[in-house]
């Protein structure tokens, strides 16, 4: 067993022996030796020393031996490029072999050898194989183009292979078509604007014909490709849907899911009053239910997708609640997903059944599952008002079981029920109070304290209860401390006479003895309020709270739309956009659903607002800020000549035009380590910023490099130039074990307190966990603050441009950018830098662009490009809308 734990080296003796056997005259012995070599290779032993000997065996008429040698070559050619050349001749010869199986084998293997010199020799044989008379060779060659593109994209373009590949879409053999589609789709992902696939009604028709004839896998490739097409109108949409629906009866679940994806997407374009629309909706339900009788792993994929479908179109499965009932033997991952969907489908009509089920689940063994079931009962209460009472009594029953985690979970959800239906179920408080001692989880303690504080006037011994928590104040987690502080202040405001001492005690604990800034701040605020104006304090602290919303866990609509376009894929399993887990630019193209009745497929990501709206001013010292923006970040303060590209923003600017933005991604910078583990008792934080669907995201990767488990993560920002602040708490729900890594994305708002930072885009962050509080600072790309509605009308642009005082203008150059003006403008638009106008003056392309920052400041730019000259000149100017300061 140890042998595989470590990659170890084969001892010299063994190598020597194998060498002798490989050079043996006997064919059988040779073959056995190669088999041994492959066996060693499989378990990770290094047998690269045998390269020449193995390659010598390549010249053989034994197909099995040949395949083994090829397998070896694929593995080691990269480490021995010079030797690998020895194999070229055989490959080229094999590509001419009369046996199509051998020709295909050669071209297939050759594409897997990632050695530049070999790739050159590959071109001619590949060209021939793409036009081979045998479909088996052609289908293999089609995939080979994708392989070659992965090694050397430029070469593939130069050699014209892409055109040949496009021709194969019209091939007579369905499998060749399928592979060509697969290869083209993959290549197209890395060229988002190239329109490689060139989908038009004619080519779509060809694909739909091939769909009926090719293998199950080919059908998947074709359907996935079809999903990227946007029909011109509802009629075309309907006719494609009609031809895709038979696939819903395929035995292969992936074919079914891909067909569902196409239908879900194209349905958007159909008018709702169309008969066909209703028929289609009805047709979708049975196949989705059937997916649940597949193997558990596929059920899991199906359930994750159904979760999305149910959120997008609840009507499809609203009558199918029963099939999502959990079976005793379902794997836990299936159980948890089913539970999620049950809650989503819960309605007045079926709530009785659902509740009976959930109650059943709450007595199961798996702790996670039981907790989720209890929580689900609470969510049902919030979702279906008529059932609230029944839910509450069910929860009370569960509390009576005295199973510790059930009780705690129940208390947490009852708190939410109180927030939805205030002053309705107070009768249960007595039962809750009985269980005070058994609560050991922060969330449950905090919930209980909240309840006591909120209903202090009805609980006779509220002061005693809260006092009992106060004893161990410093050992509590922040969540509980904050809640306790608030609860006691509430109590004081309700029963001022007997609780004066208690409130003093908690205020001094919070303000004087605590290191936590949150707690201190809140303590001081209460203190001030109470001491200056108790009436105001009452109004603030005891104010009527907004009711909590019905569904807090719905996926945000734009993300949902994108995920619907990715049905069946990993993105739909993770419920994350591909950019969140795919490296580089590949596959991070944002997909959207088509809009109903659009005439052209060009529904770009330009948000509506074409006229500039007067931006609301929220920043106090904006004059300074403006100066800073220009001076610090866009050009050095003194010089007028081209500045050296050193400052952070300058790099950002380069990035925007450079390769990093090959696709329309909003991912801006690659992750950097912000907080090394050494400085933070084993917690390593790295991260990046991104703008996704209009929301600024801070992507954090937390790694626990210490020996102990970390819990209770929280995050805070210092005041900063653009008022960035976390829009929600840091979502680290599970404890982070040693050597575990977790990726969290934290949505940011721009309405926090503002303070000028130096450099401007500096952000100071504090992260807290159960061990300590850690501080670090990082810099964010200004471009993430560019908002989506930064498009201006030409006249407004012109007027504004003129209005910009010279002092506010600056110029610099971007060097070595090989893009033409259209490509540049497309790329910049992806980052919310919008081209307002373009003109050509004396061979120079002038682009006029507008950017709107999150705080409402407009930045206008002029981009000068000369054909053939890789250097661009950028002139920037800005003016505050509405106010004239200069």
């Amino acid at each position: 067993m140890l042998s595989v734990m470590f990659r170890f080296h084969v001892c010299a003796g063994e190598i020597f022996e194998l060498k002798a056997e490989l050079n043996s005259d006997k064919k059988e012995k040779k073959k056995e030796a190669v088999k041994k070599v492959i066996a060693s290779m499989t378990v990770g032993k290094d047998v690269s020393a045998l390269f020449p000997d193995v390659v010598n065996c390549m010249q053989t008429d034994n197909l099995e031996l040949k395949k083994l040698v090829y397998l070896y070559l694929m593995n080691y050619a990269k480490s021995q490029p010079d030797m690998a050349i020895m194999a070229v001749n055989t490959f080229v010869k094999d590509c001419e072999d009369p046996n199509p199986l051998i020709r295909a084998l050669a071209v297939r293997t050759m594409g897997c050898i990632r050695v530049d010199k070999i790739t050159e020799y590959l071109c001619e044989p590949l060209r021939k194989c793409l036009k081979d008379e045998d479909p088996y060779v052609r289908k293999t060659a089609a995939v080979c183009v994708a392989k070659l593109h992965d090694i050397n994209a430029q070469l593939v373009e130069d050699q014209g292979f892409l055109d040949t590949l496009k021709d194969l879409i019209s091939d007579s053999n369905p499998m060749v078509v399928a592979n060509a589609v697969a290869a083209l789709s993959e290549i197209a992902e890395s060229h988002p604007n190239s329109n490689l696939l060139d989908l038009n009604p004619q080519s779509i028709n060809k694909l739909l014909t091939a769909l009926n004839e090719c293998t199950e896998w080919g059908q998947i490739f074709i359907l996935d490709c079809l999903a990227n097409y946007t029909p011109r109108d509802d009629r075309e949409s309907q006719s494609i849907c009609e031809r895709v629906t038979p696939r819903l009866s395929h035995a292969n679940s992936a074919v079914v899911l891909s067909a569902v994806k196409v239908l879900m997407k194209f349905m958007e374009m159909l008018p709702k009053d169309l008969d066909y629309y209703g028929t289609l909706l009805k047709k979708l339900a049975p196949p989705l239910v059937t997916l649940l009788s597949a193997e558990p792993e596929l059920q899991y994929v199906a359930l994750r997708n159904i979760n999305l479908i149910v959120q997008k179109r609840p009507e499809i499965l609203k009558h199918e609640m029963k099939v999502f009932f959990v079976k005793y033997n379902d794997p836990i991952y299936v159980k948890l997903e089913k539970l999620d969907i049950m809650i989503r489908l819960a309605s007045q009509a079926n709530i009785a059944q659902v509740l009976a089920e959930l109650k059943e689940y709450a007595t199961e063994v798996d702790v996670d599952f039981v907790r989720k079931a209890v929580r689900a009962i609470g969510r049902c209460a919030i979702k279906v008002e008529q059932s609230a009472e029944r839910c509450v009594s069910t929860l009370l029953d569960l509390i009576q079981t005295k199973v510790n985690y059930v009780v705690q979970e129940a208390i947490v959800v009852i708190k939410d029920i109180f927030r939805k239906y205030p002053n309705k179920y107070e009768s249960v408080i007595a039962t809750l109070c009985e269980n005070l001692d058994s609560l050991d989880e922060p969330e449950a303690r905090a919930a209980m304290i909240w309840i006591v504080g909120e209903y202090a006037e009805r609980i006779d011994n509220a002061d005693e209860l809260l006092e009992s928590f106060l004893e161990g104040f410093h050992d509590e987690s922040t969540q509980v401390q904050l809640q306790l502080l608030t609860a006691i202040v509430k109590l004081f405001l309700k029963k001022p006479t007997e609780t004066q001492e208690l409130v003093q005690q908690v205020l001094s604990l919070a303000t004087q003895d605590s290191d936590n800034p949150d707690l201190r701040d809140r303590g001081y605020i209460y203190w001030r309020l109470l001491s200056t104006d108790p009436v105001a304090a009452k109004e603030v602290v005891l104010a009527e709270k907004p009711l909590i919303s019905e569904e807090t866990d719905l996926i945000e609509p734009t993300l949902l739309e994108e995920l619907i376009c990715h049905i069946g894929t990993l993105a739909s399993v993770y419920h994350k956009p591909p950019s969140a887990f795919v490296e580089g630019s590949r596959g991070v193209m944002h997909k959207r659903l088509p809009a109903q009745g659009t005439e052209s497929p060009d529904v770009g990501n330009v948000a509506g607002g074409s006229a500039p709206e007067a931006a609301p001013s929220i920043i106090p010292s904006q004059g300074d800020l403006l100066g800073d923006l220009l001076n610090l970040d866009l050009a050095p303060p003194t010089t007028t000549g081209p500045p050296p590209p050193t400052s952070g923003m300058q790099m950002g600017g380069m990035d925007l035009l450079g390769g990093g933005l090959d696709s329309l991604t909003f991912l801006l910078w690659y992750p950097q380590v912000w907080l090394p583990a050494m400085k933070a008792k084993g917690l390593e934080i790295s991260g990046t910023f991104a703008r996704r669907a209009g929301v600024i995201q801070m992507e954090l990767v937390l790694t626990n490099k210490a020996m102990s488990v970390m819990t209770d993560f929280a995050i805070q920002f210092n005041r900063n130039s653009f008022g960035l602040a976390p829009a929600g708490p840091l979502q680290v729900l599970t404890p982070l074990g040693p050597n575990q890594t977790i990726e969290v994305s934290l949505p940011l708002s721009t309405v926090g307190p503002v303070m000028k930072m130096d450099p401007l885009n500096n952000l100071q962050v504090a992260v807290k966990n159960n061990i300590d509080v850690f501080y670090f600072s990082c810099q964010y790309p200004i471009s993430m603050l560019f908002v989506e509605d930064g498009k201006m009308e030409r006249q407004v642009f012109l007027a504004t441009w003129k209005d910009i005082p010279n002092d506010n203008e600056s110029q610099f150059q971007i060097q070595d950018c090989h893009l033409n003006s259209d490509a540049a403008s497309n790329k910049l638009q992806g980052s919310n830098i919008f081209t307002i106008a373009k003109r050509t003056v004396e061979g120079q392309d002038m682009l006029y662009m507008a950017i709107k920052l999150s705080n409402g400041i407009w930045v206008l730019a002029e981009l000068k490009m000369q054909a053939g000259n890789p250097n661009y000149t950028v002139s920037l100017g800005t003016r505050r809308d509405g106010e004239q300061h200069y």
Partner: protein
Amino acid sequence: MIGGLFIYNHKGEVLISRVYRDDIGRNAVDAFRVNVIHARQQVRSPVTNIARTSFFHVKRSNIWLAAVTKQNVNAAMVFEFLYKMCDVMAAYFGKVSEENIKNNFVLIYELLDEILDFGYPQNSETGALKTFITQQGIKGQFQTKEEQSQITSQVTGQIGWRREGIKYRRNELFLDVLESVNLLMSPQGQVLSAHVSGRVVMKSYLSGMPECKFGMNDKIVIDKAGKGGVTDEVGKSDLGGGGSTSGKQSIAIDDCTFNQCVRLSKFDSERSISFIPPDGEYELMRYRTTKDIILPFRVIPLVREVGRTKLEVKVVIKSNFKPSLLAQKIEVRIPTPLNTSGVQVICMKGKAKYKASENAIVWKIKRMAGMKESQISAEIELLPTNDKKKWARPPISMNFEVPFAPSGLKVRYLKVFESKLNYSDHDVVKWVRYIGRSGIYETRC
């Protein structure tokens, strides 16, 4: 697309490792072993993301198959492929076990090279693969040019699942309707959920390239035929057998899926099932019904807690089908609490035993006719515990086999046409069999 495929034994040792994409490094092999196989806890998800690399896995007995990728692949396709991979291996060398994999690793590499190219699944029909990937490996040399092109056209062709030139002296067809009936019943006898998932499995030994047409008592078809006044030769056909249930004429099929040989567009438009069958055994279709299911057995549980250290359990089973039919292999499994110290059982029929290792009383009855009832009663002694947690009371489950289709499905006809060879539908010998088995057949207590 799939970046690599690994096969491990239960200890996490690599048996097969095939990398298709450059972005998958050797360390991926170790990452999966350390984070999933060695994690020694229940798998919480079949998809794992480790350091931006996604791992899909399935387990067959104690063998782990893992597919790796760094892209946004079609997840359903990856799992379908992994299952297919298992099927192909099983078709070549039997059970997917460590020993078989080690003994056939060259063959497996050869297969992996063929059915997955650059991570794209290719034709993986065993029928086609077996024509050119053989364990002898040298077949390539002795093929004539015609044979070669026949292979390639089959692998890439429209009918990738059948080769030409098949000949049998006796043309035979075996058709099995295999159903598994699933039930979840409340202690009070209310059906919480019930469905039948059925399969039509065929073994065809037919010459040439026959065109087949399959018909059953699908409600939609029957209704259509009824309206049009077209009378089919129902009942006259020799396939109408197995009739076990009452005079139910047609059944409502919720959904069905078909083998890739079936022309889906034809089913969609005319609801007729026509196909050119693969040779040998294959699954023609799967279907699901939820309406008017015949539940062959009813379980009536009665559990009474007598004090803290004793449980009394009484379970009655009733068979609910024609008295002339016999159910077989009946097994009732009554779970017992973990702190059971002793059990006394009395049953009217069959044998019952308390199995401490499985925490259950297992009651077995060899045969039971329809419309009968039988009963078991047990006294369970419990050890006193201070465990606060209540016993979860898992449901009582049942296994059985009955010689009819609980969904009510009947085969109306299966016609064979082969225009080139001179045999007709009447010359084909056809056999039909109905078997209903219990799926997850549970009654809560």
